[in-house]
Structures are given as C-alpha cells and as structure tokens.
C-alpha cells in the first residue's frame, strides 16, 4: 500500500529580483552572438548530426533503419577499431616523448644565450612547421623510396642495403619521423616563449646562491614552464589520436603496410568513403572523440596537480 504524498513543500524561494525598469539589456549578446552563432554552426551542429547519424544504419539493400545504440555496441567489439587505437597509442608512447624532449632541449639551448646565431636556429627549426603536412609527407615519401628515392640513392651510392622505411615493420617509425620533423619547431616555440617570461631576478637570486646551469634548469626553468609542457603534451596526444594526413598520403606508396584501418581517423574515413557506412563511421568518430577527451582531461588534471 502506497500512499500518495503531496509534494514536499518547496524550499522557501528567494525573493524575486527587483523588477528592472529598463527591461533586459541585449548588448552583451551583441558581442557574444557572432561567436555563439559560429560555434553552434561549426562545432555543435556537426556533433549533433554525427550523434544523430550514429543511431541509424543505412544498407545497400533495405535502406535506412533506426538501430538505437547498436552501432556503439558494434564499435566496442570492433577489432579493427581497437587495433587502430592500439597503433596510435604505441605511436603516442614513443613519438611524443621524443618530439617533446628534442623540442625542450632546443628551447633550453636557445634560452641559455650561449648559442651563436640564435635567431637563425630558431627560424630553421621552426620552418618545417610552416610546410603543410601534405607537402611534408610527399617530400618524405619520396626520400623514403628504396628504388628511386633518397634511400635508394644512398643504397646504390654506398653499395649498402638500408632497411625499407615503408615496410610494414618500419612504416610507423617512418611516420613518427615525419611528425617529429614537422612539430619539433612548433613545440620548441611554445617552450621557448614560456622560458622568456621567467623573471630575471630569479636567475640573479640563483646565481647569488651559487646554483649551476643544471640546477637553474631543474629548479627554476622546468617548474616555471610546467603549464607549457602540459599544454604541449595535450596537443600532442590529440594530434597522435587524430593521425590521418601522413598515413593517408603514404598509403599509395606502401599499400600493404598502411591498411585502410591504420589509424582511427583513417578508419572512419575509409568506412565513410569506401564503404558508404556513414552511420558506423560517425559512431567510431564519436567513440574516438570521447576517448581522446577523457585521456586529454586526465593528463591535464595530473599535469597541473603535480607539485603545485
């Protein structure tokens, strides 16, 4: 036997705000409006549309049917998706530390003030970032060629037989090399600008205390640029998970090493454009987006918490 209870008395309401005399001012929205409109159009709408797409299945025979969360269930047990995620995770674990390590070393070297031609180094290390990824990959793809590329030329000039950078065993490392080449300069610039804003008084104090260069780096410089390090790491994680340009452009050169499900992004692209599986493609993209968000968020939390 249940008794129907009258709804519990609501908490005493706060007194209504005094009525405004001039009505609501929309000036704020005037400033915010353009941003909100663009944000809704290019950010929210595509996500909403992807979510919508992911709830259907369109078949060559039978047309479109509503399938609820079936596509998500399928994605969670899709070996091809998980294999591609594993591949970019391995890539992330190896390539990102190398790239950020080099970028950090270069930034510290530039900042030390003991380098001749500092501006020249800064520009030349940053320069690859200015080369579009597509062009960079085409260029490296040509160099990787064992028959007529640079590797091939070295082989025939020196009479050696270098391992094929585009073979299934090495192609991930070769992609890592391209990405490192492209983004060392960009990360270096982030670190370098963070180093430049450290107040000089700290260095003077350290000098008075008799600290050496290494001590200055570990006690002053690194803690001071932690924020920049975390940001660069998060960008790199997102970049690794979104890996697409490099493998898709190298694919024609190494068709058997780079499969159509090589990275999660490439997989969604293939699903959509080779197989017309737009619905499932949207699902995989959403799952991947969520995974990226979670990992980036965890890294940010941890990175900011440490030793503050």
């Amino acid at each position: 036997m249940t008794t129907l209870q009258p709804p519990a008395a609501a908490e005493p309401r706060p007194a209504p705000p005094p009525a405004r005399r001039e009505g609501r001012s929309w000036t704020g929205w005037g400033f915010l409006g353009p941003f909100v409109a663009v944000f809704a159009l290019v950010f929210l709408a595509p996500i909403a549309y992807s979510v919508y797409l992911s709830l259907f299945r369109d078949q060559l025979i039978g047309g479109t049917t509503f399938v609820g969360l079936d596509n998500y269930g399928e994605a969670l047990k899709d070996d091809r998706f998980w294999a591609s995620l594993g591949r970019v995770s391995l890539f992330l674990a190896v390539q990102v530390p190398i790239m950020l390590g080099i970028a950090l070393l270069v930034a510290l070297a530039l900042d030390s003030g003991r380098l001749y031609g500092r501006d020249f180094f800064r520009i030349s290390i940053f320069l690859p970032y200015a080369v579009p990824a597509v062009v960079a990959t085409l260029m490296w793809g040509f160099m990787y060629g064992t028959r007529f590329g640079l590797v091939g030329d070295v082989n025939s000039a020196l009479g050696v037989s270098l391992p094929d950078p585009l073979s299934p065993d090495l192609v991930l490392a070769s992609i890592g090399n391209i990405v490192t080449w492209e983004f060392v300069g960009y990360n270096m610039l982030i670190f370098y600008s963070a180093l430049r804003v450290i107040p000089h008084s700290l260095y003077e104090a350290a000098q008075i205390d008799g600290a050496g260069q290494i001590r200055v780096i570990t006690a002053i410089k690194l803690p001071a640029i932690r924020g920049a390090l975390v940001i660069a790491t998060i960008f790199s994680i997102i970049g690794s998970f979104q890996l697409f340009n490099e493998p898709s452009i190298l694919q024609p050169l190494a068709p058997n090493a780079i499969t159509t499900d090589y990275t999660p992004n490439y997989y969604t692209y293939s699903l959509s454009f080779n197989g017309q599986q737009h619905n499932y493609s949207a699902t995989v993209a959403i799952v991947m987006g969520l995974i990226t968000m979670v990992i980036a968020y965890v890294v940010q939390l941890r990175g900011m918490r440490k030793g503050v």
Partner: protein
Amino acid sequence: MPKHSRRLLRGIGLVCALALGATACGGSDDGGSSQKSVSEADIQAALEEGGTLTVWAWEPTLKQVAADFEKKHPGVKVDLVNAGTNADQYTALQNAISAKKGVPDIAQIEYYAMGQYALTEQLTDLKGFGAEKLSAKFSPGPWNGVKAGGDGVYALPMDSGPMALFYNKKVFDKYDIKVPTTWAEYLDAARDLHEADPKAYITADTGDAGFATSMLWQAGSRPYTVDGTKVRIDFSDQGAKRFTDTWQKLIDEKLLAPVTSWTDDWYKGLGDGTIATLATGAWMPANLASGVKDAAGDWRVAPLPQWTAGGGASAENGGSALALPELGKNEALAYAFVEYANAGEGVQTRLDNGAFPATTADLQSTKFQDTAFPYFGGQKANKIFAESAANVADDWSYLPYQVYANSIFNDTVGKAYVSDTTLTEGLKSWQEASVKYGAEQGFTVEK
C-alpha cells in the same frame, strides 16, 4: 541529480528532434519503377526539343563527341563534368543520389562498379529504350558488364579492356629471353631475367584488386555468383588455385618489383627496363605513350599468356560504360547521347582520339586493325587486342559492392606481398571481409 539528468535527456531529445526534422527525408524510398518505355519517336522528339544534359565522365575523348553532338543537334547542350576518376566519382555520385540533388543525367561507370548501382535500382534500365537490340553490336565481355548480373541493361558500353601482354622487347632481346606464351613460361622468364639483371623484374605488383580479379577471370575462376541480392563468394575453385600457385612462386622468389602501379617509381621502371612486362587492358597504349616517353620503340604487345598451352582464354581489365542514373532528367535525350557516343557516330570520333572500342564492328574493321602504333615500333597491336576481346569469357560477374571489396584488397590479400601470409590465405580473408560487409549491407551471402 535526477533533475539534472532529466534536463540532459530533454536536451538530447531536442537535438535529435531538430536533426530528424532536418534530415529524416533522406534515404527511405529509392524504389520507383526502373522499367521505362521510351520509343524511337520519343527520342527524336526530345532531340528536336533540345535541352541541357549533364554528363559526369573522366574519359577524355568524350569532349569531342559532345562537341559534335551539340553541332548536330543545335538545341542540345552537353555539360561535360569531370567529377573525379573512378572511385572518387562513385563517391560523389553516391552522395548526390543519397541527397537526391545534383544527380547527373549521364554517368560514366566502370563495369566492376556497375552492380552496386544496378542492384539498388539507381540506374535506369535501358531495355525500355530498345537498348537490347544493340546487344549484337558489342563484344561479349562489356555487354555482360552492363547487364551487371541481372536481366536489365543498365548502360551502354563505352570502351573495353581486353587483356594483352605488353613487354619491353629491348630487354627481352638483350637477355635473349623468349616472349612467354604460357604463365609457366612467364615464371621461367621472370627467373631468367632477374638472374641476368638483379635490378630487373618481369613485372611490378604490390597487390591490385583489378589485376587479381582479371587474372582469376582468365584462369577460369568464378569467385562471385550473384543472383539478385543473393551473393556467393568463394576463392577456392580450381581457377583460383592456378593463379595463386604461379603468382605465389613469383612472390616467394622475389621476382615481382615491389612498386605500386601509377607511382613515379612505376613509370620510371617501365621506362628504364627494370619492369619488363605488363599484363593489362587494351587501353594501356595511350598511357605508355604519354607516361613513358623515353621507352618509345622499346615496347611491343603479345597475346596474354595462357594457363594451358595453346589455349585462347582472355579477360577484361577495366573499361567503362555510360549509364542513366534513375534520378537524372531528360531521359530520352540522355539516351540519345549515350547511343550516339557508344553505338553511333561517336565511336569513330573516340577511336580517332585513341580510345579502345567495345563495338565488334569497329574491333573487326580493317582500318582499326591495321593501325600501326609508332610507340610499338609500328606494330599493328589492335589485331592482338581484337582477338583478345573475342576470347573473353562472358560468364564473369563482379560483386554488387565490388568498389568496397577492392578498397580492402590490400588490407587482406596485400599481406601476401609483405609477409609470410600466402596468397590463398589472403584471398580467404578477403572473402571473409567481403562476406561480412555483404551481410551488413543486407545481402544474403553464402560462402
């Protein structure tokens, strides 16, 4: 908390409702009767009335054909659009059809891709236009291609690709190697050549779906059986074994140049003699002449090597047709153009510009057969191509979703080229992946 989640739910519901409202009209009814009846008189009337035709095609010789057609029928304007080459165009076409917007009146579709459009009733059946009486005009391979495993006629054949063996005579002469007439001799030639010059290979192959299916076709394998929406995929027949046995040896003994077709490396290899042969379609001469200029005079054409000595089996590689998408307009006029281009005066125009015909009369004409190719040292190569065209078995069918199947060829069979996986195992995993996709797309698939 409950309040919060309720609000969240309501939000999601709203988003979905909005999205539904905006797009729910897509898809669902792609039926409609594809059997239309259009008489000769209707076509004449349409030609007199005129109008604009949108044609999506990448075939270069159509340009002249379109110009001639416009001249002949002043009221007609042919808008020739290059919407990308093969798979790119199919993506664009599929998208246009899904959106029911911007669908061309005529589209170029290769034989291997025909099934997907025919089966899903996205193409007009040209039987009602009287296309069937043209069947005798075309060689059996292409005509079978436009029927796409059904009993309709979904396009008119534009060109064809009966296979032949292109070989570098200079290289063969240099090492005193005989031009192979069987695939067994081909294997021997591959060994001899690579031994004589470790940099030279009999051919380049890194796994190509179009090539593999053509080779299976010639070897007598019939991996795909299509009956409406019932599909059977099986790579275990005797014909497939013939192909894999020989090709596996070429792979194992590293006798195939690891160079992918149409790359810079490939063109260079064809030019400098390190890639000595190509077994491919009769549309190749123009590509050699434009892409491998340095080797002009070095190359010749021979009949495709046989699986049994003295045999005469051939297969098609490539080739395409012009179809009328169901959602296109001006059907009578569109048919008039397609007939003009592929069965009428347009054929000669295209021949003059280097295309390879699908029409038997042209294949057999002395003018065509006596054409001397300067690139092949004056050889009358069309004789070989025409003979090949006549020898193509017409009982081959592609999958209704061959475009997708081909896109995953290197994911599956490609492994045989770079690892210990054998070709047979590779074909098996290709089969499994194709079966899986077919089932997901609503086909009844048997293994």
